[in-house]
């Protein structure tokens, strides 16, 4: 056994050994070890790390948008600074039709993007998880009812249903988020139900049931945790879709309203200038591309890392 007070490199080595041990001494050690293994597999994937980098950059930009933005995102200089090309003094990415700095608007707009993604994730994913696990575990008529409701939602194209909801609720960023959350949960319910079906009949569930656990306890404590990893992957992969749907609603004038610097709405206003001032539409387009790509790469990497089947190999 090595000396715990020896050189730093050997201390790292000992942490590694402790985390990767085949015989964990406590549940906490086992759990941490598991996370470490996932991280090792995740970090071996360069593209996944790029995706994570994009997400971290987005978080940082959103957090420090006020400091980073050189100009106001909503107050422009219509008279003197309209439609300046990228690289103009003071306006790195050019200005839009109202004389507003596109860079500042993109930076501030990252908050809206993040807000949409985060709110949809924290509302749609738990709803889908709950519906899916309950349906899968209960079976019978409850399963039939819940799954038919899910089917009805899945029968519509996502964007079309979201548009209908926003049209009914009235345009605005809050309603857009609500609409996207409402159309986003059914796939999660499907995934959760499928996972539940596979573990429902397993021995340890039967053991818990024999010990007198209520169905609620079984679903929440013993089934949901098992569904989480596939759900996380699915949500991460969907992030790009959510961003695109939000941008699509913004583009159609149903999402964020002026003067909010929502990226989709920015493209919509830039469309008018596309022949002569390409940058007005292209800059937010590039931003959406980078962020959606980042989320996709991250989701891909997470799937590879979290997939229990690959864990054995």
């Amino acid at each position, binding site marked *: 056994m090595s000396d715990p007070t020896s050189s730093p490199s050997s201390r790292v080595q000992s942490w590694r050994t402790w985390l990767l041990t085949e015989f964990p001494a406590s549940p906490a050690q086992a759990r941490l070890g598991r996370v470490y293994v996932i991280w090792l597999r995740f970090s071996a994937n360069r593209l996944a790390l790029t995706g994570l980098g994009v997400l971290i950059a987005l978080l940082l930009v959103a957090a420090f948008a006020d400091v980073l933005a050189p100009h106001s995102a*909503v*107050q422009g200089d219509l008279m003197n600074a309209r439609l300046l090309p990228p690289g103009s003094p003071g306006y790195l990415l050019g200005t839009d039709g109202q004389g507003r700095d596109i860079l500042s608007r993109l930076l501030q707009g990252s908050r809206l993007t993040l807000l949409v993604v985060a709110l949809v994730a924290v509302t749609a994913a738990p709803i889908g998880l709950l519906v899916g696990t309950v349906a899968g575990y209960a079976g019978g008529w409850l399963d039939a009812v819940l799954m038919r409701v899910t089917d009805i939602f899945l029968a519509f194209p996502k964007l079309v249903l979201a548009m209908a909801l926003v049209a009914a609720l009235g345009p605005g960023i809050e309603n857009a988020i609500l609409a996207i959350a409402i159309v986003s949960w059914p796939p999660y319910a499907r995934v959760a139900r499928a996972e539940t079906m596979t573990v429902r009949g397993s021995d340890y569930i039967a053991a818990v049931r024999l010990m007198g656990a209520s169905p609620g306890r079984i679903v929440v404590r013993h089934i949901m945790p098992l569904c989480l990893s596939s759900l996380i992957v699915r949500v991460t992969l969907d992030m790009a879709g959510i961003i695109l749907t939000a941008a699509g609603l913004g583009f159609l004038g149903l999402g964020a309203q002026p*003067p909010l610097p929502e990226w989709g709405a920015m493209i919509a206003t830039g469309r008018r200038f596309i022949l*002569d001032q390409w940058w007005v539409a292209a800059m937010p387009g590039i931003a959406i591309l980078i962020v959606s790509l980042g989320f996709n790469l991250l989701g891909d990497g997470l799937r590879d890392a979290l997939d229990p089947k690959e864990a054995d190999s």
Partner: protein
Amino acid sequence: MTMSIPRLRIRRALLGASLALGLSLSLTLGAPRVYAETPKDTLVLAWAFDDIITMDPGESFEISTAEILGNVYSTLVRLNIDDTSEVLPSIAESWTVSDDALTYTFTLKPGITFASGNPITAEDVAFSFERAIKMDKGPAFILAQFGLTGENITEKAKALDAGTFQFTVDKPYAPSFVLNCLTATVAMVVDKKLVTEHAEAVTPSAESPYDTDFGNGWLKTHYAGSGPFILRDWRANEVLVLERNDTYFGEKAKLARVLYRHLKESAGQRLALEAGDIDVARNLEPGDLVALEANKDIAIESQSKGTVYYFSLNQKNPILAKPKVREAIKYLVDDKAIGATLIKGIGTLHQTYIPAGMLGAIDDRPYHLDVDKAKTLLAEAGLPDGFTVTMDVRTIQPVTGIAESIQQTFAQAGITLEIIPGDGKQVLTKYRARNHDIYIGQWGTDYWDPNSNAETFSSNPDNADDASSKTLAWRNAWDIPALTEETASALLERDTAKRAATYADLQRKVLADGPFVLLYQQTEVGAYRINVKDYRLGPSFDTNYVDKTFKE
């Protein structure tokens, strides 16, 4: 066996045909496209005309329809587009006004005919007026305001003989006003014989006590006029085809055919014009206009229109009803920047409600962006920290751009402006029901006379919710008995100079105190290829004549 040979042949032929099709497809896609020039005797215009609902002059009240009707129908008298203060003879050769200014007698040109070949008589004129009043559609008020009703119309507008038409009004209006109203599309003369043949019997109802539709159903999509062109075809949101009327009584049109293609986007029109697919582009935005100005193959025609853009403050909102707030808001529009950018080439700044070029127009522009002054005024009104207010905006340029600019300048004085987007119908319905805070939009003059705008901006006979006269002042719940009286008096003033002075006075009062913030007067722009000659836009939408235009 005998059967299989022809079958084989058919198959071969099919194969050949599909090969040829594939080849031609790949050629059109692969090879650089060859653009056919538009024919010499045909003018092709790209234009957004999705607003056209009907081609019946007695019913139509839309901007695009007015232009088409102006080219295919004739009125008794027409506006002189070079000097809008006078009217020119058209179907009428001459006219007299009685000393009491109540009776107008028109002598028709002799021996003139409709495109159908039927002669144009005073009977046709009387019938056209009668059906407009009796159908009682959108534009009927332009004639009805002279005291015409379904009961008295045959007496008030009648044929004395085949060549003489007499029109009687209820008050001694200024003759210029009456004649200007008679240039409107609703007063266009339709072919009585042709229209009557196609009239359908209907069951009289509470809305319409007549047993005929006056040919309205047929005339919606057909033609019974006598203009320099005939309306050959109209396919909604696709194409409009006009053909020369060889029996036209005036100077014959120079072009054999005029084609209006429905092309909505400015960028699309610009590309088609540059490629030579079209001769004239009609819905260009400032950015595309600037790019086309640099093209030496393309010339630009622009013309001030009788349309003003404004935003208005609903006086039902207690904050907007404060005079100091109204004044402060007028100082919160960056008119100079808007004029230099958003409406460059498509509008001129204008702050009074009568458009330049019309009797009584003045060019007072006292309000410019002055945030400090606005803040002072807001503080005096008891709102030093500003307030929040909504604006209903139709999602169409340049209106949305201007609304965003106003949103920014309002914010500088602490006023939070929430933009509520909607399509034209939604926004207008809300506005007409007086449920808005701020509305932004345009007002197009109904007929070329200052009364059209004066009546709507500075007259509100009854401010009740169920009033019968729903002027713009009413829509904004602006109760103005004194101004209403003054507006009515201007109508009876027969001295043109005095009449103009009254309108100037009215406009200054509205400018100083009214709930209307006038922004600009529209300039209509048409960009055309330089081989097109004498392409002109008129001051109103029914005077965009193409009969003088030709191509080299």
